[in-house]
């Protein structure tokens, strides 16, 4: 066992919890996320794509749990998989898609898009390969029980002391209000 794994296990055992089978969980969740991602962009039926995206979101929520981020995992499941994807499914059912599932699925210039995406992938691979030495070997385990409380302090706390994101939180709620107004006005038949 190299130092990274030993340090992680030691501090985790000291904290009272021992992560077991971590590589297995990671590979299963990551493989599920990427396989569902491929299904999202290749399915002919849009409902199949939406369901595959839900599987991707749940797999990514599992990855967040592995990264000691239970609150973000909960937000992901509730907001993304439970809110946004239901909205997508409603719109798919409103818009008549049966006709479009029999037509041509990909653009006429899809090789250009694929080449651009491959160039982007090459850029990512070169960045990760070049910067591999910059990442630390041992990772400390974040405490899981006070995660929500710490995030709440950062979001709602007093602006000077501990709440660094209070103003951003208020702006985010304003953004949601504007989005709701925009969506309602845009879909009205007579303004």
């Amino acid at each position, binding site marked *: 066992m*190299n130092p*990274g794994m030993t340090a992680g296990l030691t501090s985790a055992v000291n904290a009272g919890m021992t992560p077991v089978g*971590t590589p297995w969980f990671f590979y299963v969740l990551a493989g599920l996320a*990427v396989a569902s*991602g*491929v299904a*999202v*962009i290749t399915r002919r039926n*849009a409902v199949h794509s*939406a369901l595959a*995206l839900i599987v*991707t979101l749940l797999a*990514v929520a599992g*990855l*967040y749990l592995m*990264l*000691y981020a239970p609150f*973000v995992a909960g*937000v992901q499941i509730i*907001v*993304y998989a439970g809110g*946004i994807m239901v909205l997508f499914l409603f*719109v798919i059912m409103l*818009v*008549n*898609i049966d006709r*479009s599932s029999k*037509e*041509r*699925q*990909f*653009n*006429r210039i*899809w090789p*250009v*898009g*694929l080449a*651009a*995406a491959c160039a982007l*992938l090459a850029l*990512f691979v070169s960045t*990760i390969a070049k910067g591999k030495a910059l*990442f*630390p070997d041992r*990772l400390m385990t*974040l405490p899981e029980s006070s*995660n929500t409380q710490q*995030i709440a302090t*950062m*979001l709602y706390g007093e602006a000077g002391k501990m709440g*660094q994101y209070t103003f*951003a939180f208020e702006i985010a709620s304003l953004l*949601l209000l*504007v*989005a709701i107004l*925009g*969506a*309602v006005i*845009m*879909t009205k038949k007579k303004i």
Partner: protein
Amino acid sequence: MVPITTLHYLVVAAALFVLGVIGVLTRRNVVIVLMSIELILNAVNLNLVAFSRMWGNLHGQVFAIFITVDAAAEAAVGLGILISFFRNKETINVDEIDLLKW
């Protein structure tokens, strides 16, 4: 087995990002393009949470929450645009939404 480091999560996030980019650039169905944009945002979120774990503080997670909120607003507005356009022209293919073309 190799212990799972931050790099593993970055590779998964990069793969999801590239899949989302392929979906945006090559699909004709507008709803699937919007879903590929959600894939891209999720890849960015995974990146942020992985780095938050690496540095040991929670700034990345709070940023990920804000990006999720922003993705919800953007999905709502994008789908509203799609519905009002569909009411006009009865199509959801990006090829046929070309009223502003020269």
